[in-house]
């Protein structure tokens, strides 16, 4: 290679006027070819640049990095209709279990107070028919008294109302 040209390139290199291609040519010249004594002091500057280009990280870094990155990826999962409603079914099952338990508890705790609608299970309260008759008559009398009381009250109200109306008319 023409050393004069290299000297010119080198001068332009120090002035930052060289292109990337020209800088590559300089690097190639100083690392591969025979370098004349006049240019020898600059040789190591370009050898250093070339050697620094192979500095790097090992393959273990790739593995470590990929495990960090790909480990955090959330993969898409196919969900069927049944599996989609699974949580709902679970909730419904829990509610059903609670309702059943509540029902059982209610039956076992309050069974005696429950109304028995089966007339065949009914039994006589009194052994003596006379006593039973008296009890029923007295119960009916009390009922009749209460009904007549309420009727009187209603008629008293209507008389009072009629009197008030007549006074108002006058």
């Amino acid at each position, binding site marked *: 290679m023409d050393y004069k040209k290299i000297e010119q390139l080198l001068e332009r*290199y*120090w*002035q*930052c006027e060289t292109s*990337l291609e020209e*800088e*590559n040519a300089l690097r190639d010249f100083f690392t591969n070819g025979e370098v004349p004594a006049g240019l020898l*002091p600059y040789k*190591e*500057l370009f*050898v*250093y*640049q070339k*050697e*620094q*280009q*192979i*500095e*790097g*990280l090992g393959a273990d*870094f*790739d593995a*470590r*990095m*990929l495990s*960090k*990155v790909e480990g955090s990826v959330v993969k898409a999962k196919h969900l069927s209709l049944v599996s989609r409603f699974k949580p709902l079914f679970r909730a419904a099952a829990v509610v059903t279990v609670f309702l059943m338990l509540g029902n059982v508890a209610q039956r076992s705790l309050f069974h005696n107070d429950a109304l028995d609608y089966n007339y065949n299970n009914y039994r006589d309260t009194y052994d003596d028919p006379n006593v039973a008759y008296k009890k029923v008559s007295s119960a009916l009398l009390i009922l009749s008294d209460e009904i007549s009381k309420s009727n009187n009250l209603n008629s008293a109200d209507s008389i009072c109302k009629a009197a008030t109306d007549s006074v108002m008319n006058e």
Partner: protein
Amino acid sequence: MQEISFRKDILPLKDKLFRLALRITLNRAEAEDVVQDTMLRVWSRRGEWSKFDSIEAFCMTVARNLAIDRSQKMDAKNLELTPEMEQATDASGPYNLLVQTERLELIHRLINKLPEKQRTALQLRDIEGKNYKEIAKVMGLTEEQVKVTLFRARQKVKEQYLAIDGYGL
């Protein structure tokens, strides 16, 4: 527009990001953490990947910002970077295997002593081979500012290197 894949498009940037972070933090373990944090941040914004003009420039910007944060935190711990320490950190990596001569070590130290902006510009241009537009995007500067920063960096390295070399190192 082509879909961006983490495995194919972002993970292969690890070496470039590592070299940039290493140039800023000057510490291999910190630089590796920066790359990891950068990738996790970029991953967390995967919904916006299609909006970026260049995912590489975006990754570089994130890495640079994280590396600057980390190196500032390291400075805050009052750990002064003495030449011995710089060499000690360098010796821990494969860099030492590559560097065969004292001259290469000297260049390495001279570049690492530059201010962060000059170091980053030099790294992105001379080692990563980025054009001025890409560098401007990563560094948040204009192309003209990148040129000026790179010019100062190259001049400083050249002057100091030739000065020391002149004494017969």
